[in-house]
């Protein structure tokens, strides 16, 4: 029986290898996502075009503007006059305008000595992108009020990701998403394809327990996912510079547990869906959307409404992404995220159990 199991694995591998387009997509998606999220799409605020309105260009103002212009986050557009502000913002030529009061220097001294008065600097921002505007306003304040904030009581330190690189945050998210895509979606589609093509009928009328054939189906997908996993980790470390300080082995073993979980999820979908389209839709609606929205990949879970916070606890990706983030960026060893591992393990056992039970060796 051992060697016929191998021939099942071989048959599945042939299916996958002959479908070269799908293979290519599976390998390309992670690379494209990594590059996209790593470089192109970022939640960081970069290259904000700032114009300055300053009736008197005193030394202090020049100094402030130089600081601003030298900062990576900003590019200095130039000085403009008061009546140009609205036009420049509206046309998108600038994203932010800093207005200095005419007697800026004197007023700054007052502020420095704690005398309250009317504002000395006005910031006008294009808030059509709320995130950019918010972040830009924060940066601008910290640069322009530098001398003042030195005297204030606050000091902020960014731990683990001091440059606040968004790629660090996205890598675990992408991993959480990709493995569901490759394992769950592709296995479920491939099992359901047998139903749709009618080959399942022939497989069922044989002495082999169909479950064995399905297990054989999972092995090549598991292998592909492992390759994708290595690819992602390689790109993350060498291309994006993600530290992986929690230990690569820990990340690998946790990821493999997550792979098995995704495979079981795909198996469960395949027991419900009768057509490939249905399997794809279930995978997309039931797996993709919640992962994107509720796993903490894009939006912090703490920011979700209470109801969705509860729902998110049911989503395996949430626990996986959280644990990988801790291991990759915070440098926590796998032992520290044991509760996440335990939850994922429990979910795997449950999913496998349910799909074993639901698996039907009849046609109805």
């Amino acid at each position, binding site marked *: 029986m051992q060697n*016929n199991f191998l021939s099942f694995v071989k048959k599945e591998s042939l*299916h996958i290898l002959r479908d070269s387009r799908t293979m290519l997509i599976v390998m390309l998606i992670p690379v494209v996502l990594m590059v996209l999220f790593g470089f192109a799409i970022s939640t960081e605020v970069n290259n904000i075009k700032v114009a300055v309105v300053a009736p008197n260009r005193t030394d202090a103002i020049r100094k402030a503007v130089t600081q601003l212009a030298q900062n990576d986050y900003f590019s200095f557009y130039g000085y403009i006059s008061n009546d140009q502000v609205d036009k420049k913002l509206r046309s998108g030529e600038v994203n932010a305008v800093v207005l200095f009061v005419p007697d800026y220097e004197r007023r700054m001294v007052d502020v420095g000595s704690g005398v309250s008065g009317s504002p000395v600097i006005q910031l006008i921002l294009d808030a059509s992108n709320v995130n950019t505007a918010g972040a830009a306003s924060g940066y601008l304040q910290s640069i322009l009020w530098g001398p003042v904030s030195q005297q204030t009581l606050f000091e902020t330190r960014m731990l683990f990701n001091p440059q606040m690189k968004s790629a660090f945050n996205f890598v675990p998210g992408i991993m959480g998403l990709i493995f569901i895509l490759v394992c769950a979606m592709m296995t479920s589609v491939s099992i359901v394809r047998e139903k749709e093509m009618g080959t399942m*009928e022939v497989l069922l009328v044989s002495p082999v327990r169909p479950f064995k054939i399905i297990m054989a189906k999972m092995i090549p997908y598991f292998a592909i996912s492992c390759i994708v996993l290595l690819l992602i980790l390689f790109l993350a470390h060498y291309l994006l510079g993600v530290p992986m300080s929690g230990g690569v082995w820990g990340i690998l073993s946790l990821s493999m547990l997550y792979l098995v979980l995704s495979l079981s999820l795909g198996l469960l979908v395949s027991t419900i869906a009768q057509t490939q389209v249905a399997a794809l839709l279930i995978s997309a609606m039931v797996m993709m959307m919640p992962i994107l929205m509720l796993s903490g990949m894009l939006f912090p879970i703490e920011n979700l409404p209470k109801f969705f916070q509860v729902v998110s606890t049911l989503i395996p990706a949430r626990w996986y992404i959280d644990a990988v983030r801790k291991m990759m960026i915070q440098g926590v060893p796998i032992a520290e995220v044991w509760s996440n591992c335990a939850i994922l393990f429990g979910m795997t056992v449950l999913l496998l159990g349910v799909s074993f039970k639901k698996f039907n060796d*009849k*046609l109805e």
Partner: protein
Amino acid sequence: MEAIEIYDISKSFGPVHALESVSFTVRAGELFGLIGPDGAGKTTLFRLLTTLLIPDRGTARVGGYDIVADYRAIRSCVGYMPGRFSLYPDLTVEENLNFFAALFGVTVAQSYNLVAPIYRQIEPFKNRRAGKLSGGMKQKLALSCALIHRPQILFLDEPTTGVDAVSRSEFWNMLSDLRQRGITILVSTPYMDEASRCDRIALCNEGRIMGIDTPRGIVHQYDTELYAVRAHNMYALLEEARKVEGVDACYPFGEAHHLVAGLGFDSGHFAERLGFLDGLHIEPVAPTIEDVFIKLMKR
């Protein structure tokens, strides 16, 4: 010994009664044909006998095993070829055969002499993807795969549907060869002309068996006179013939119309009545299975 015994089996899908109290037996070593149009319940019966479905009522035994209780035993000893092409189109001919051999825990070499007469015809194309084969070759490959584990009983659901006439005839020759080797074969077909190749046939329609006999016996049951009628205007002939008294039925049959004679029918009188039709010709013919089928369906 009976290879297949079916007792009063019924199966419904929602409001559709696919099978209604069907009973018959197939003897060991027999080539048994299930003849009926689409929707007669043939596929449902095959799926019940191959343990893919559970009957609502009734029991059946295949190779001595109960289709519900001993379904695993049945799955090991029968060969099943479903109606639609159910091999892997992206695997080659050889890979398909190897896979199905492995599925049953045998090797192609062990069963080669059984499948050889069939497989040899497609062996020149063994590196071709199964999806790229012609209809007839696909069926040969599917039959090879269904035979690879030397089953005692073979279930073939409409193996010749969508296959050209030459390949169909070849396919039936192969089935006769297999029967010679002692394999029991239950085969279904919508083509009445194939029925004569079977040892016994069951005519079925709308979930019921209308008659079971040898092809010859079925034809012998036909107890009324049958005529073939022709005229230049065949459509007008059909219309007019149905109006003549004593004509039970008249239906197109190949190049002529078949006319079922009822009480008080006289062919001379008929020719006189329809004398106004050019080229009218009437002659008695021997009934075929299709005529029997049409008659049974009318009942």
